[in-house]
């Protein structure tokens, strides 16, 4: 069941990614070139998703939008996961006051209205990719840290760690060679599950005008443009980017959940072997 979900969600994602990568390459049109004679055309055979208020073809522009949004989201998810794994391993391995400090910090970060602080920070450093990535990554590492910490706590009890210690491995070796690699599946799942959140955040920031500059099409900037086009009857400027946003986030979320089931099936106890 989980494998079938993974295949379905994965194929949807593959189609979207192919669309995002191939269309801008093959279309032979620069999605930034404006042509006001073609402005606000309804979807037709020539312009599958219609054109925006500057006459740019939306079929091409949405493709570049997905590419930008997914790349930004991937950066955010990777950075958040790296922070989460490092913090989680440190907390789980040392225990004691570092552990309590980490747990309190995750509580604090979780209690904050993330996106609000993101809006404020990104507004101060407007148009900077680094600010967007940091604002998302720094508020989303807590979940990963908690999962990794509890994983480390249970791993420490496992026989292979005892075996390594008996064989004379130092604490450092145990941590770096045995514990960190064992969290890899959790980290992979975390990256996938963080992606939809990151896409959401980036598109929201861009929609409010704090994200990427308007000539860099992301799903958020496209939806921001839809806001003014809608008043002039351009329904397609909203429908297609919104549909793509939903399909991308849902497919990634489903893939993540299915992946979690596939990677971490209910494990039989090692002691029973």
């Amino acid at each position: 069941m989980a494998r079938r979900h993974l295949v379905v969600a994965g194929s949807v994602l593959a189609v979207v990614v192919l669309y995002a990568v191939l269309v801008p390459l093959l279309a032979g049109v620069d999605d930034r070139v404006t042509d006001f004679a073609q402005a606000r055309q309804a979807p037709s055979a020539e312009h599958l998703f219609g054109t925006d208020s500057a006459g740019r073809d939306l079929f091409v522009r949405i493709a570049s939008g997905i590419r930008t949004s997914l790349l930004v989201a991937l950066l955010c998810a990777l950075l958040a996961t790296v922070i989460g794994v490092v913090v989680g391993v440190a907390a789980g391995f040392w225990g004691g006051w570092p552990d309590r400090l980490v747990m309190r910090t995750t509580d604090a970060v979780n209690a904050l209205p993330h996106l609000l602080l993101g809006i404020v920070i990104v507004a101060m450093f407007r148009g900077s990719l680094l600010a967007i990535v940091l604002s998302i990554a720094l508020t989303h590492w807590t979940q990963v840290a908690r999962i990794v910490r509890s994983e480390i706590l249970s791993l420490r009890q496992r026989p292979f760690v005892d075996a390594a210690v008996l064989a004379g491995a130092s604490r450092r070796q145990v941590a770096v060679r045995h514990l960190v690699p064992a969290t890899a599946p959790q980290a992979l799942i975390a990256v996938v599950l963080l992606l939809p959140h990151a896409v959401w955040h980036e598109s929201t920031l861009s929609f409010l005008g704090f994200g990427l500059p308007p000539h860099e099409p992301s799903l958020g900037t496209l939806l921001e443009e839809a806001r003014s086009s809608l008043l002039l009857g351009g329904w397609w400027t909203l429908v297609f980017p919104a549909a793509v946003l939903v399909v991308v986030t849902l497919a990634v979320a489903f893939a993540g959940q299915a992946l979690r089931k596939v990677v971490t099936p209910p494990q039989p106890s090692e002691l029973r072997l």
Partner: protein
Amino acid sequence: MTTVRDGRGKRPAAEPGTGPADGPARTSARPDAASRTAGDDAPSVRDLRRGRHRDVWGMVRRRLLFIVPVTGLVSAGLFAAAKYSPFDPLVGYLGTRYMTTTEADKAIISEQLGLDQPWYATYWGWLQDLFGGDLGRSRSFSQPVAQVIAERLPWTLLLAGAGLALAVVVALLLGITAGVRSGGLVDRAVTAVCVVVQGLPPFVLSLAAIAVFALTLGWLPAAGLSDGGSDPTAGGVLRHMLLPVVVLAISQVPWLLLAVRESVVTSKGEDFVAGAVSRGIPTGIVTRRHIVPTSLAPFVNIVGVRLPELVVGAVLVEEVFSWPGVAGAIVTSARDLDMALLAFLTIGTTVVVMVGSLLADVVVALMDPRVSTDG
């Protein structure tokens, strides 16, 4: 956060003899149970409750103490970030005159405004003013910050309150219906819709609602509080708030609903439900008296957890619908880097969210004695 300690021990001996159909096998254990509650050394229900209240107060104190340093860190970080922002605050202050002012004059102005001070001096000055009751002056609204808040807060409370109330009612009704008949037609339909709505950010929902109900059908106004800037009337406000409130509610419903459904499904499998069913209690009563009450505590918990998202939803909905509330003012002040208003709104919202989730946890802890107060 609150966690369920274990699945047993709820209301010890609080329901003596609810079941008329207590079997003969149970009667043997009965005198023992009765002597336990009546015994001198065992704590009475009242003692347990009093101890519980003490635990909850302890949690409240710990969490309040925790809110202070977090708020301090967030506000300090805000002022530090503002200092390192590449935007010259003078641009906001001078507007178009920025171009015509000489460098020497700019230096004088920034010295008078205290812009050349390090961020902690600015922060310290802001803190002193704040505790002295002076919130400063908002540049983007050309009003004192206190007045901006006083004028706009009621509208946000109206929008967010109505939205949250609607979301809670819808989530409870549909969630319980779906959970009780899990796997049925209603359940599958509701769950599918929820999953799709989870993928839609509030601003997309807002735009879609405006496109359909305001622009295409023309049933409801697209923005603002009243038609053409006239004074708002009760009926007019009601008409104008319908779309934003419904959109805000819809954007919050999926998480709440799926949580209710989940806890209803879980409690359906608990022993006390099986016991009630086997005693021949009708399904309707089992649902109302046994399943729903145990599902409410996790629900209150999830409402508390979702508070930050409600704030973000309010920000986006107010922005798209030009609703004159404080949440929309956050976006305006962030756009203009109007620090006096921005700092107060951001930090105020942060405190409100943290206190709100504490309140939710207190309600949960008082509702359900199984919940631990360690968090």
